[in-house]
């Protein structure tokens, strides 16, 4: 695979990968680093990429694994939890203006599978079959995860709105 093909078939997914990494890592510089790392790895394996059937899914899965490895590292985990704590502390200052940020925080609180599923489906527009291929689960599980995730976020939004009304 030459540079032109690499750009058209792999590098074009950089924004998608960045958003997913940001969703998983909740840290913009770390997400950028993860994407760059994956791109570099893909470039090194560019000759083997021709044999891969679902290249997009392969790259997304590689990034997911990389992000999870990063999260395993103690420092990243501490940072990650620290940011969650920060988000939670900010939740006391609910306003309509930062409601979007709070919803993001609510998504970040979801279990990993649900978080990835909701992100790939609602943000990136993947259908259930594609998500099932990427996550290596069946479509029914994808639908269940998606439904539960949406329900939880909805409940969170309702809670936040109720809190806001009480405050007013």
């Amino acid at each position, binding site marked *: 695979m030459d540079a032109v093909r690499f750009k058209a078939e792999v590098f074009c997914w950089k*924004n998608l990968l960045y958003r997913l990494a940001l969703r998983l890592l909740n840290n913009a510089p770390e997400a950028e680093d993860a*994407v760059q790392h994956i*791109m570099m790895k893909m470039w090194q394996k560019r000759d083997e990429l021709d044999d891969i059937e679902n290249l997009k899914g392969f790259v997304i899965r590689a990034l997911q694994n990389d992000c999870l490895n990063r999260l395993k590292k103690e420092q990243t985990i501490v940072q990650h939890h620290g940011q969650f704590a920060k988000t939670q502390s900010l939740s006391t200052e609910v306003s309509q203006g930062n409601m979007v940020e709070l919803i993001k925080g609510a998504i970040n609180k979801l279990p990993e599978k649900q978080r990835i599923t909701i992100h790939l*489906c*609602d*943000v990136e527009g993947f259908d259930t079959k594609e998500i099932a291929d990427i996550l290596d689960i069946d479509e029914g599980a994808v639908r269940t995860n998606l439904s539960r995730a949406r329900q939880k976020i909805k409940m969170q939004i309702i809670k936040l709105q109720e809190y806001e009304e009480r405050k007013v």
Partner: protein
Amino acid sequence: MKSGKYSELLDKFYAGTASAEEISLLQSEALVDEQDILYAEMLKEERGQKMDWEFEDFMKGIPSDKVKTFPARRVWMKRILAAAAMLAIIGAAYILWPLPQTDKMANVPPSNKTAEPNKELRATAVLPADEIEDASPATEKVKTASKKNRDAVVNTDKKRPVQKSIRQADTTGVSNNSNSPEYLVIVNGQPITDEADAIAITRESLGMISQNLTLTVDELKPIREIKIKL
């Protein structure tokens, strides 16, 4: 049929591609509420996130695939140097190595394996009287290289001026010997007139020398084991 249509509309709503009419239709059917609209707003914002990274920057960061060619290692030079060093060592060993033993030395009786430490043996060649006087006072201690025989000293009447006289003796010795056949060898100042005794003493002394040489050679053998790494 209707539910399938709403399902498509919901997918469009979450994908952010639904029109205002479609959203109002979903709201009227109670499929979408205020929370969903807020969530859709968040999704729209999420989709706007992009990574500021161009392909050219990525390519610049990639290390070159070209195989770096280093100058050919000068192995041949090292080999030549090693061979030269070996030749030098062999040459030095050949020059400095003791002379091969004669058959006479090989016949030395085994009882005389080491030279006795304090034994002084004066073997004086048959010389004219005046030359013997020159040579008699000075003795030169010849030490062997062997540690075992460090104490073993063979004193001979050999002295540099004596060497000159020996040479003279070589040239003139036949006539001198023929002129004065009273004694053949002087040992510790005592002339040995008996030919058999003289031969025995000479053999003994030569045997001691050869023994010392043999020991020296044995001590020098480890030189062969020396390895030189360059």
